[in-house]
């Protein structure tokens, strides 16, 4: 009996995987088409736009760059210098010393000639107690918040309380922002009242020449992990995020580099402490509560402002990062489950949320089951060998095709990697990425699901090599 049922189940499952594959890749292809159209329109709009004029404008919204720092005495001064050099007419840099145990604060006081100011501010979102505020005599736009340790979300909340900008830019620990990135990322806020948040592109800095918090020469890393992640980030940002602009808006803005309307963030209660996906949770909150109240709720992605990040180059660290990302995603989707197929939330409930649930969250489950069931079916004769091989070839080919399409889009538009060896390396990694690397991410994401089910909320240690003299705020 069992020998009759198992092949039937496996055959059924193989068909289900096949159908899922068509849906997922159909979605990805739709996103790619949407991203191509959005990119074309974006480039038409920004052609010869006067960004220098924006620098002298009296009506640009003020931006507070929030940079949490924890035990960063070695790099904090250089990081703050890099932030102060960002091109924007009304920029306030808010560095939050999150209860560092080393001499981070002393370094800042010494380097920037800080003097204490009386903290006149509203405590609008919860955070650990603030011990003091300091302003620089050399750079009056620099504000340093010294607070008790409470983690990244808590530090950002303290920054939100003390910042005075209409917009706040959350900047991650290992991010190098290009000098004109703020002038570019502010664009949606100057053209659409309904925008509450905007995200920029994150690119992989590993392998590039970095000095004084700037990427001087963009190169593709020859390392397997960094190389695969370079392709992955390109795919994720250049069409994954951009494509959503036309299809219902984004649900994710990278915590490494995003711009938010401060008032809207305060209205939703700031960053949530009890999650590992606080950046995604904030976006979901902004969109959901905005739609509930009928207030602005649009989240846009802008492709040309670029921030560079150092990605993990060790299997262990990368695994921990992906595990945490997936736990964060699961947590956010669980918290906002009321949005699913709820017509009240329009595209968010009917398109965006179901995609994140079906493709991003459950994708690894289906992929893992497929990876088990198809070979098992082949062994038991339930799945035809030719069919299985053809299916795997088509699936792999489609993945490579999407990668190559993104590289073509990059070549047509921004061309950050100017040299032939880099282009060849990028194409090489786009072919290699689908063999082994992607399957590993499936395992890590499954581990994330498992650990979420067990209630794990730890961040894990994220050690990195360091990028020349980077901004390690």
């Amino acid at each position, binding site marked *: 009996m069992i020998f009759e049922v198992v092949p039937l189940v496996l055959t059924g499952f193989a068909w289900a995987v096949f159908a899922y594959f068509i849906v997922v890749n159909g979605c990805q292809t739709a996103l790619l088409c949407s991203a191509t159209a959005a990119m074309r329109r974006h480039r038409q709009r920004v*052609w010869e736009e006067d960004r220098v004029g924006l620098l002298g*404008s009296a009506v640009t919204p003020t931006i507070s760059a929030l940079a949490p720092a924890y035990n960063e005495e070695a790099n904090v001064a250089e990081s703050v210098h890099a932030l102060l050099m960002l091109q924007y007419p009304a920029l306030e840099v808010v560095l939050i010393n999150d209860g560092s145990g080393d001499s981070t604060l002393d370094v800042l006081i010494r380097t920037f000639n800080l003097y*204490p100011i*009386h903290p006149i501010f509203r405590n609008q979102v919860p955070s650990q107690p603030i011990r003091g505020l300091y302003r620089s*005599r050399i750079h009056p736009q620099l504000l340093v918040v010294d607070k008790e340790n409470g983690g990244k979300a808590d530090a950002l909340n303290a920054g939100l309380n003390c910042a005075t900008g209409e917009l706040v830019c959350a900047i991650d620990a290992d991010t190098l922002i290009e000098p004109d990135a703020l002038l570019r990322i502010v664009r949606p806020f100057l053209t659409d009242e309904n925008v509450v948040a905007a995200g920029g592109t994150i690119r992989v800095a590993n392998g590039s020449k970095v000095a004084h918090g700037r990427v001087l020469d963009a190169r593709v890393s020859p390392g397997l992990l960094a190389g695969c992640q370079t392709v992955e980030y390109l795919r994720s940002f250049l069409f994954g995020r951009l494509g959503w602009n036309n299809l219902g808006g984004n649900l994710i803005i990278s915590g490494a580099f995003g711009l938010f309307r401060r008032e809207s963030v305060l209205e939703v209660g700031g960053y949530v402490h009890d999650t590992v996906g606080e950046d995604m949770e904030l976006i979901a909150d902004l969109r959901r509560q905005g739609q509930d109240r009928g207030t602005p709720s649009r989240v846009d992605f802008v492709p040309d402002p670029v921030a560079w990040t150092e990605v993990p180059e060790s299997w262990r660290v990368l695994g921990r990062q992906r595990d945490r990302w997936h736990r964060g995603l699961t947590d956010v989707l669980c918290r906002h489950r009321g949005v699913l197929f709820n017509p009240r939330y329009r595209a968010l409930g009917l398109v965006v949320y179901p995609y994140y649930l079906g493709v991003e969250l459950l994708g690894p489950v289906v992929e893992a089951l497929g990876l088990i069931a198809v070979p098992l079916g082949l062994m038991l004769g339930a799945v035809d060998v*030719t069919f299985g091989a053809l299916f795997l070839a*088509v699936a792999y080919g489609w993945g*490579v095709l999407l990668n190559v399409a993104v590289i073509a889009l990059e070549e047509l538009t921004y061309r950050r990697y100017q040299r032939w060896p880099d282009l060849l390396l990028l194409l090489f990694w786009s072919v290699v990425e689908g063999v082994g690397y992607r399957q590993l991410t499936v395992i890590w994401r499954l581990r994330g699901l498992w650990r979420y089910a067990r209630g794990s909320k730890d961040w894990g240690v994220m050690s990195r090599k360091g990028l020349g003299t980077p901004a390690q705020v």
Partner: protein
Amino acid sequence: MLYDVLISVLLAEIGILGAGLGFIFGHAALRQVRAARLRPDMRVSMDILARVLAGSPDPPPLPRLPLDKAIEAVAAATRSVDDAGRARLAQLPAYVALTERSVRWCTSPRWPRRLKGVRLLVILGAGHTTVPLLLEDPRPEVRSAAAVWAVNHPSPQVTTRLVQMLGDEALACRLTAQDALIRMGRHAVPAIIGHLSEAVPAALATALLVASRVRDSALAGPALEHRNHSDPAVRAAVAQVLASGGGTDGVEGLEGFLADPAAAVRTAAAAGLGALGHWPSSPLLADRLGDPAWEVRRAAGLALDRLGGPGQLYLQRALHSPDRFARDMAQQVLDRAGPGRGRPTPAAFAMKRQEE
């Protein structure tokens, strides 16, 4: 059947992949070859343009460049030149050709092309007859770009249209119009006065805020006409205009606004009096230290601080006020350290959170 489909898909994938790779390599190769081929011509062009700008007589003609490179060269030359330099450039046949082309683009039925035309005319500093018409364009992108052009071409018609644009339905147009009017400065004053004098001006608060940035005393009178407007945002903007202009009427107006029912108006009035440095208003500002709204208390405290000796005296007195809010704000302002002040004592620096 399914095999056939899968094989077809696989073959299609291979075909598309081949085409994609061909495109990427071809594009990259062509780009590099083109860049190498055009580099000498670009260098010669830049050199000739520099000589033209330096006033060299009879410069040689510019080498023939593709459109994007011609735009790049001319844009690089024109970004920071004065009118005389621009007039010299305007005699170059290549410059004239670019101007003609952009004027043609401005009349295109396709908005991206019109946008391109206006942006190019902004760079070239031309288009006196064409661009003002585009301030009425149906596309906000084009209207907004035309407003950028208007900054350097402030005719009465253009400034009037820009003031009307303050009430545009598109945010980009409203912001660009504000920016353009502020940059125009005194050229914008007649149009703003005309707008403020209308029976029911559109986007009144925004127009007043622009007026406050233009900082012309002639704007105070028309602004004061709206001191009793029902919208607090308008009254607050009037206060800002008065603060930017000063004068006896302005001070009286601001003192009157300190008793306004809206907190935003009282805040603007307190900040304005502080900015004007009008020390005789100290008693009125000291009264506002006990205001129910935190913003007003803070603005009053900071204004008193800016008034110097008299203001400090009232802040010291407020430390003994029976009103605990006034006491607290006075304490906070007096404790506020600054580059010109000494380092506060640890006790004074102790955290006093404002929970609201």
